[in-house]
Structure formats: C-alpha cells, structure tokens
C-alpha cells in the first residue's frame, strides 16, 4: 500500500516530521517497506532558459546553446536533443550533479571545440520515466533558477507500507491516518460527505438474484458528465503510487480505492443493455471480456454482475470492457456494493486475479459506510465532470455487523506481560474508534467500529476476517467442546488486547527470561533423535562432507533409484527437474557428486542425513543416513591410491550401525540390494536374517552412465528409523579371565563363491565356551590355487577360563573348528 505524505495529511492534521511518522507506523504494525523521496535525487536540477540555440560549428547532430539558470552567468552548453531551441524552458544540471537516469556524475567538458558547462535533461535522465525523445520542454511561465523538483511538486515522499491480511481498513490512506492519530501522531480530520440531492430517477435498477451473490448494493447515476483527463493533482497522486491515470471517472474509482479503501465501479449507462443490473452467481456459458484485456468464464461459485446482454463483470474483482467508461461517456452509473468476503477470496484465487478491488473486498470493507461513500463519490464526479445526480437505487441490506467485546484489565499483564493501566487501555481503544459501553474495575466492554472487521469477527454477520474452528475430529468430545467454549469466551478479548499493546508499542513490554521448568534442563533429544547426530559426526569423521540436497528431483532421475509413485509427484513443480520426491538421498547426492566431478574435483565423498520418500504418509518418509564415494583414495607416498569399492561403502554403513549400538555378531549380509546397485557387488546389512538396516555397494553402471558419471562410485544408505532403540538396562559385569588367550591361524581352501562370512560363523559356533573371537586376516585367489578356489585365512582366539589349556585341548578345539568349517562350507584345511 503506497501513499504520499501530502495525501496522508489530507486526513491527518499533524506537523510530525516524516521520521517520526515512519517510526510510529513500524511500531503499530503498519510496517514501512520503503520511502521514496524523489525530490532528494532531483535536488540539484534547476529550471533553465535557453537564450540561444544554434548549429554546432563542428558537428551536424549537435547544437551549441547559451543557457541561463538564473544565477547571473550565461553558460555554454552542447546539446544533442532534437527539440533544443532558442527561447525554451528546460531543466539543467551543473557539473558535480549526479544524473540518476545515466548513473553518471556530470563533469564540465568541451565537445568538438565548444565548451559544455551544463547539461539539459530528458525525463529518463532524471529517472522520471521512459521519455528520451528530447529534453524536458517546460511551459513558458516556469520560473528560471527554481528547483525543478519543487516546481513539479515532486517534493512529496512516497511511503510504502506492508498491510497484514487482517487489516483491510489500513488499505486506505484514511485508515492509516486513523491509526496514526490513535497512536498520538496528530488528529484525524473529520469526513462527513454531504448528500447530493437527486435531480432525476435512477435509470438502472438493482436486482439481487441470489442472497449468496450480494449483501447490499447501492447505485446512482450522474448524467451530463464530461469525461476527460482528471485534474493534475489527482493524476499526480495516482502516478506517485504507480497507477496510470486513465480518465476522470475511472480515476475517481481508483482514488476512492486508495483514499478510503472503497473500491467502486462505474458503468457507462448508454452501454448497459436493459434497465436492470443483476447480482447473481455464474452460469454455464457465462463469459466476458474484462478491463484487463482477459476473457473470464465465471463458475457457479462466482459472483457476477449482468445486464440483459449477459455478464458485465466478476463482482468486486475485475470490471468488464463493454460497459466501461471512456471519453464518450455522458451518463455514468456508480456501483457501491458489499459482497461475501469469503466468496470473493475464492473467486479471486480461482481465476488468479490480483486486483486492488479484490484485496479490499476479501479483507472486508466498512459495511456501515455504503451510503456515505456513494454520496462522496457522486459529489466528486460532479465536481470533476459536471452533471446532475439521479436518485439512489438499491437492493439488499446492511449486514448486522454491530457487536461488542470485553477486555479484562488483568489480561494486559497476564497475557500481554505489559504494565499498561486500565485508563490508558480504554483511551487507546476509544482513540481507535471503539465506543465505551460499560466499564468497571475489572473490565471494559466496547462496541467495535464498523471498519474493524478483524476484531470480534465471529460475532459479525459480515464474514470478513472470520475463521472457523477446525478441531481435530478425533478429540474427546467433552474436551473439544470445552476448548471451543474457551475460544468463544476469550477470542475477542485477545483482539482488543492486541490493539492496546500495539498502540503503546511492543518494545514497551518488559522482557522476562523464561522461568526454569526444572533445576537442570531435561535432555532435549530422545535417544531416537540422537541417532542422526551420532551418524552425522561419525560419517564426517570418516572423511565424508555433509551435504544438504533437495528432497525432490527429476522424475526420470528418481526412477533410476526405485519406485516413483504418482502420489509422490509434485503437482506444481518450480522447475521440470524438481517434480518427484526422491526415493533415496543417494539420487540427489550422486547428482551433487557429478557436479563436483565436472568442476575438476576427481575424488568426492559426500553424505546427507535426510528423508527417503516411499509414500506421502508420515511413515513413508524414512530418515536415512546416505553417502556416496567417487574416484580414488588419496594419493600418498606410503599408501598407494586405489579406486573406492563396495567395501568402503560397507565400512561406512557398518560403522554407523555399530556406533548406534548394534553388535557385529547380530548382523548378516545378504546380496539383494536394490536395482540401482551393482548386482554382484552390493549387499544389505540385516539385523538377524530379516530386518534390513543398511544397503551398500558399487552403483550400477547403467545408473552412472544415465547420470554421466565416469569411474568408480559407491553408495550406502543406513535406514535410521529401522534401527531398534537401544534397551536401557544395566550391563552384566564383564568377564575378565586371568589366563592368556591362545591364537591359532588356519587357512582354508574353499569355492570362490562361498561367502567368507559363512566360514567365520561356522568357526565361531564350533566351540562357544572356548572360542572368544574369529576373524579373517587373509584372502588369496592367485593362480597357484585350483581354478575357482580361494584361500581364506582365519585367526581363532581361544580363551581359557579355569586354567591354562594343554596342547591336546588346543588341538582338540582347533580340530572342532576345522570340522565345523568343512561341514558348513566344504572348505578344506590347507597344509
């Protein structure tokens, strides 16, 4: 919402400086978005008289001028403008002045042998528009030497405020003035439009065809008007806030929209077919050409205004072209109507029209000011365009907006934390237009002014600003009813409290630190929530860089990584390549890794803790710690570089699982990872035989080639949500035997396809009482072995508990291990 300072002063009697007005606007909730002081930028520019303009001696397209800027010096100026001529009045800048349109600070110079000691400016050079066809050509009576900004009345700062959705009343200069006056900035000027006596019967009748279409409508004609350009003061105001002046009748409606927050519409009576204008809901086949040049097809939920020929406008949103007013209009019909704000909001959204009329109608107008607004508009039209007014035709009735609200003074401190006293609270409300109905020591009851649709909205028949309760249907009925009753009791009180606090300024409320809830704070994370943090630290400590990537990606990319259900498709993506929720963070991490490769970084290790999306349900969003490694291990003199492989990814996944409390013995590996992994070089880590906890492996070459990634690439995903919560129980005392363990190394020859893990399991199970640990320490598959065979070497640790083991006991245990491994895997002991 924009307005100029002088416009504000039309309604507000104040001598407060601009800075104080701006500070107050911010304090009371009318946030200042910006102030444009056009005069400041134009301050150095003076009105000049061109004493002489002759052809430049050395340039065909230039002229040599003698210019007087009223300081007694005649300056030589070289000018290229085609309209420069002797005797004209123009705008001059002297050396040192900054020219906003060109971004250059002017310097004196010489052009082809002629001195140039000033510059004559075009509108564009002054930053005042696009006109660059020539220098500004001022009327003959423009005073030489005067400030151009002052002469052109540009010394009026334009203030832009952001009006929150609840404050329809502040979408009017008068509404802003009222708030400022209540906050102690000056006095609101009276506004009592005098009725215009009717000179003839109204030529058009209103019909409200459906009560849902319109609450109340007034209309009135003025005949004998002359519709030309509106007066300069009005054009200046509209231009200052960015509106294009059109003609007097249309400009009046725009002026009312901003001045009083009252959108009006004007019909050219001669263009209306028939004698009635009907407010009704849209019908099949309705269609009209709007003033914005677009064609709209109203639906049965939209409100339209129709004459005998059909729809003329989408009510309160955008008017029609066919009955609009232009220079030929001789009789105008002014519409001043009140519609259901909810219906207007939905219509505006349905047809995607953002108009000043819609913004005000959907937030709510002053339902009591209908007649006064129409009288004021009639008077202004007669003032500007002449003519005489008809009687008023009307339909519908003013909605019952009258209501009261009560504030208990105790709540000012109790909810507001403020020390404002009862007297101050009441006077603030009165200053805002609330009427005192009753007051005692504990509370005040006020009547709500008609323009404040945001206060005690629920009690107004005009539905502006109101919202309905939307209670969770599963609530216990008694509990829900009590909560609803609570709202009914205190909602309006909160509205009043907001007004009282706002006018005083929230900075006035003393800050109080939150009281402690317990002497020491309780843990802020549950064990479950802590897991993401542990995984994050661990993976970063393993050399991966944490990343945050988008949760959506291109559908085709997502499809490389799994199911792409229609239910996870973004209906209105911001870009075509962000239209599907990712099935796994590996998808977006690989894209990010590919970008790093493309920047010339050959080795990339990234991870992300984020969601994999498998369905739109809350349980379909799986917290995942995922990572990718591409390229090689670091080059180093002591350690040869090698390509990353599936076991690097397994190492990452396993490390996370172990850090989150799983024991290695409880984990198994299966080879059924999802299809985006290499089928022979990937695995699933499971708790026991079933529950999958993590996946890892090389990526499938087809996926890499689809993403344009060359070279080795591995990935892992730890499904954090699947990891069982650690049980909170005390550990048994540790077993700390007094005897040294005995180690034996055993090498087996086994089919290369046999998983090493099978040997380890068999060995561990061979003699549980004695075997403390079995690990693989060598794997050899060289050509000295039979085809298809591999040698696996195990270290077995025997832990005596009662006494030192004899050689015979050791041999017996080793024999059991060999027998168990052979039985389970067909492996043979190498000699």
């Amino acid at each position, binding site marked *: 919402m924009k307005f100029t300072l002088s416009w504000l002063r039309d309604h507000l009697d104040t001598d407060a400086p601009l800075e104080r007005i701006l500070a107050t606007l911010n304090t009371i909730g009318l946030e200042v978005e910006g102030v444009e002081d056009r005069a400041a930028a134009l301050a150095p520019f003076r009105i000049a008289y061109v004493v002489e303009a002759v052809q430049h001696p050395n340039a065909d397209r230039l002229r040599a001028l003698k210019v007087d800027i009223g300081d007694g010096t005649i300056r030589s100026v070289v000018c290229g403008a085609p309209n420069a001529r002797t005797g004209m009045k123009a705008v001059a800048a002297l050396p040192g002045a900054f020219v906003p349109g060109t971004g250059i600070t002017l310097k004196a110079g010489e052009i082809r042998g002629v001195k140039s000691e000033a510059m004559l400016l075009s509108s564009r050079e002054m930053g005042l528009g696009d006109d660059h066809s020539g220098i500004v050509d001022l009327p003959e009576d423009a005073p030489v030497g005067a400030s151009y900004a002052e002469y052109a009345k540009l010394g009026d700062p334009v203030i832009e405020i952001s009006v929150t*959705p609840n404050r329809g009343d502040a979408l009017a200069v008068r509404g802003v003035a009222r708030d400022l006056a209540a906050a102690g900035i000056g006095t609101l000027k009276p506004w009592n439009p005098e009725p215009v006596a009717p000179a003839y019967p109204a030529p058009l009748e209103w019909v409200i065809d459906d009560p849902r279409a319109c609450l109340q409508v007034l209309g009135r004609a003025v005949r004998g008007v002359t519709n030309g350009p509106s007066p300069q003061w009005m054009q200046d105001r509209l231009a200052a806030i960015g509106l294009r002046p059109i003609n007097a009748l249309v400009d009046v409606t725009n002026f009312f929209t901003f001045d009083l927050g009252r959108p009006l519409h004007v019909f050219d009576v001669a263009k209306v077919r028939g004698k009635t204008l009907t407010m009704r809901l849209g019908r099949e086949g309705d269609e009209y050409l709007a003033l914005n040049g677009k064609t709209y097809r109203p639906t049965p939920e939209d409100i339209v205004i129709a004459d005998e020929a059909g729809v003329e406008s989408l009510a309160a949103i955008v008017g029609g072209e066919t009955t609009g007013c232009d220079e030929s209009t001789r009789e105008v019909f002014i519409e001043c109507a009140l519609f259901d704000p909810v219906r207007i909001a939905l219509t505006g959204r349905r047809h995607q029209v953002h108009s000043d009329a819609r913004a005000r109608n959907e937030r709510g107008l002053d339902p009591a000011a209908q007649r006064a607004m129409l009288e004021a508009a009639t008077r202004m039209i007669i003032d500007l365009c002449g003519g005489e007014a008809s009687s008023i035709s009307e339909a519908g009735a003013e909605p019952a907006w009258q209501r009261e609200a009560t504030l208990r003074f105790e709540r000012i401190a109790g909810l507001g934390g403020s020390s404002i006293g009862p007297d101050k609270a009441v006077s603030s409300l009165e200053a805002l237009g609330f009427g005192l109905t009753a007051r005692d020591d504990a509370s005040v009851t006020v009547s709500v002014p008609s323009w404040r649709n945001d206060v005690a909205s629920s009690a107004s028949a005009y539905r502006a600003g109101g919202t309905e309760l939307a209670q969770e249907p599963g609530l*216990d009925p008694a509990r829900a009813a009590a909560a609803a009753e609570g709202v009914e009791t205190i909602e309006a009180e909160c509205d009043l409290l907001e007004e009282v606090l706002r006018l005083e300024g929230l900075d006035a409320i003393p800050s109080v630190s939150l009281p402690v809830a317990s002497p020491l704070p309780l843990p*802020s994370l549950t064990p479950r929530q802590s897991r993401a943090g542990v995984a994050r630290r661990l993976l970063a400590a393993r050399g991966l860089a944490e990343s945050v990537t988008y949760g959506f990606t291109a559908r085709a990319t997502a499809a490389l990584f799994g199911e792409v259900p229609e239910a996870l498709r973004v209906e209105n993506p911001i870009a075509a390549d962000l239209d599907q929720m990712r099935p796994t963070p590996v998808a977006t991490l690989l894209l990010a890794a590919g970008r790093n490769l493309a920047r010339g970084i050959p080795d990339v290790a990234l991870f992300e803790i984020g969601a994999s999306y498998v369905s739109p349900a809350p349980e379909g969003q799986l917290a995942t710690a995922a990572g990718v490694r591409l390229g090689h291990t670091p080059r180093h003199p002591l350690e040869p570089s090698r390509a990353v492989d599936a076991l690097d990814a397994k190492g990452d996944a396993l490390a996370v699982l172990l850090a989150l409390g799983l024991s290695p013995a409880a984990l198994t590996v299966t080879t059924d990872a999802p299809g985006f992994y290499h089928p022979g070089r990937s695995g699933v880590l499971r708790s026991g035989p079933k529950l999958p906890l993590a996946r890892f492996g090389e990526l499938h070459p087809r996926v890499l080639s689809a993403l344009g990634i060359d070279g080795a690439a591995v990935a892992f995903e730890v499904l954090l949500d699947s990891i069982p919560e650690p049980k909170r129980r005390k550990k048994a005392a540790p077993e700390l035997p007094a005897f040294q363990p005995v180690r034996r190394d055993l090498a087996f020859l086994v089919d290369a396809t046999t998983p090493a893990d099978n040997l380890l399991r068999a060995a561990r199970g061979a003699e549980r009482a004695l075997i403390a640990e079995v690990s693989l320490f060598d794997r050899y598959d060289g050509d000295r072995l039979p085809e298809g065979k591999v040698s696996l070497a195990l270290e077995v640790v025997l832990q005596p508990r009662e006494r030192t083991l004899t050689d015979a006991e050791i041999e017996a245990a080793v024999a059991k291990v060999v027998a168990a491994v052979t039985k389970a895997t067909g492996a043979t002991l190498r000699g």
Partner: protein
Amino acid sequence: MADDLDMLRADIEAAMAGAEDLRALDAVRVAALGKSGQVTALLKGLGALPPDERRARGAEVNVLKGEIERALENRRVMLEAFALDARLAAERLDVSLPPRPTPPAGPEAGSIHPISRTMEELIALFGAMGFAVAEGPDIEGDWHNFSALNIPDHHPARQDHDTFYLTAQEGGRRPVLRTHTSPVQIRTMLSQEPPIRVIVPGRTWRADHDATHSPMFHQVEGLVIGRDIHMGHLKGTLVDFLRAFFGIADLPVRFRASYFPFTEPSMEVDIGWSRKTGELGQGGDWLEILGSGMVHPKVLANAGIDPRMWQGFAFGMGIERITMLKHGIPDLRPFYEADLRWLRHYATSPLSPFTLHDAA
C-alpha cells in the same frame, strides 16, 4: 499384407529370437537388411513391377522394413542388457568380507554442514532453557499445515505461502510439502499434555526460487505452553537466544506489532545491524529476523486445548538466514549445491560439537 511378406517376417523374427548374442543378431540384420538381404532384394525388385502394383507393394515392403528395424533395435537393447548383466554377475565381490579397518580419509577430510551446525547450536541453547526437540513429516495434510493453524482455505495469508502440492489422492485430498514447521506445533499439542516447551528444526518448502529464496529451506519453530506464559516471556526468550546465538551481549532487538493467523498478538522481531557493512549489533539499521506471537486461542482449541486454561507463545525463524548472518555467508544457493570447495570453506570439523561449555 501379402502372404510372402508375412512369411518372410515370421522367418526373420524367428531368427532374431534365436540370436543369443550381438554378433548373431548382426548376422540376422545383414541377412534381412544388408546389401544383398532379403528385404533389400524385395525393394530392388519393385522396379520390375507395373506402376500401379508397385505403389501398393512398395508401401507394404517399407512397412515390413520399418517393423524389422524396430524389432532389431529392441532385441539389440535387450541383448546388450543381458550382456551387461552377465558381465556384472561375473564381477562378483564377496560382500561378506570385513571392511578395511580405516576409511580412505579421516576427520580432517570430513565436515559438518553449516545448517546442521546451526541446528546443533539451536538445540544446545534452547535445550539449556528447557526445550525439547519435536519433529514431524515433510509431507503434510492440508489440515496440519493450514486449517489447524487458523488459515482456512479462503484466507488471504494462503497466497503468501507458495505451496507445493503433491498429486491429489482419492477423495481429492492433496498433500502439501509443509510450508513451515508450524504443523509440528499441532502434532505436539495433540500428542502431549501441556506444559510444553519444544523447538522444531526441520525442512520446509515453498514454490519460490531466486537469489534469496530456495524451494527447500530450513526453519526452527518454537512453542511454549503453560499456565501463565505471557508476551514478556516471549520477548525474554528471544532476546536471550539471539544474544547468545550471535555472541553479542548487547545486541539491539526490536519488536514490531504484526499479524500471523496462528498467533495473537503477533510480532516481528528485528535485530540491529549495519546495512552497509553487514556487521551485527551496530550501525543503526534494523533487520527482520523472525516472526512470533502468543498462540491463537483457535489454534489451541483446534488441538483440544482450552485457551482459558493454557496460554503460550510460538516463534519461527529461518535457519539459513541466521546462519548467513552469523557467519557472513553472502549467498543462499550454495547451501544446497554440495560444492566441496564451498563446504570446505564454511563447514565445521566433525570433532567440534557445539556445547555450552565451549566458546562458539
């Protein structure tokens, strides 16, 4: 189509089906479409036909040729896939092998993202004030994201949310990508009894993309419900947090009346900074940093809490925004690009977790 062409097609299709590898398939191609292939011969033979027969026959032969080309291509793609799968099957690695004892690089190479770092700081600072962390899903229903927060379908505030919708489900309900972390207020109030003190750090989504907006970003929400929590507490909590987070004991904080559908009274909060240098705490300019207010009675009631018995405040702020301000990061977009050069510059070491005992 003429019988001889049907027979020829059947023959070639049978040969294709019998081709077990790419070489065999190429032989089929040459036999059909090569220089002296069967179909090529038919095309060459057209010239000998009378003109009226030639046209019809020519069209048929060309249709056949097209069909065979397509079938060959399909078979080729299939055989290539078979070949790749066979190669991959041969490339087996025993994934039951234990991984190497150390990763390719250590903590010196890894890093924590600035967003996570800020979240850790938030959790530590608010945790010290007795807040617990609450979470909720990214994909929300309309009720949680809007209606329960007193933003009905027709509310003008909905326009400001630039909501992403997922495909409508049966019954016409369209899930949304949550536009703020506020739906977790509702989830929390429905799942636990007051008093409540939670913060909700998390991902949020809006259909807006430019230098200062990302379609996915992060917010932290705060919710405090008690018997006598008032606006002074809201101000105190935010002032305490902002000064601790930015490490400026006298950071100027300004409160302006504002409006949000889910709080009343509402306020926006500014901190003092210099627009010219970007330095916080001095310079005389104000920078808007968060929105807050007393929880609206309807929001409490929508979640079954009687607003006569309980009251409290809520706030929400952008995690990227406070991170950028604290660390002087000028641009939003690199947060999501995982550019290792940027991460190395702004990320923190995994060995420096945020605790209240260390200087931040």
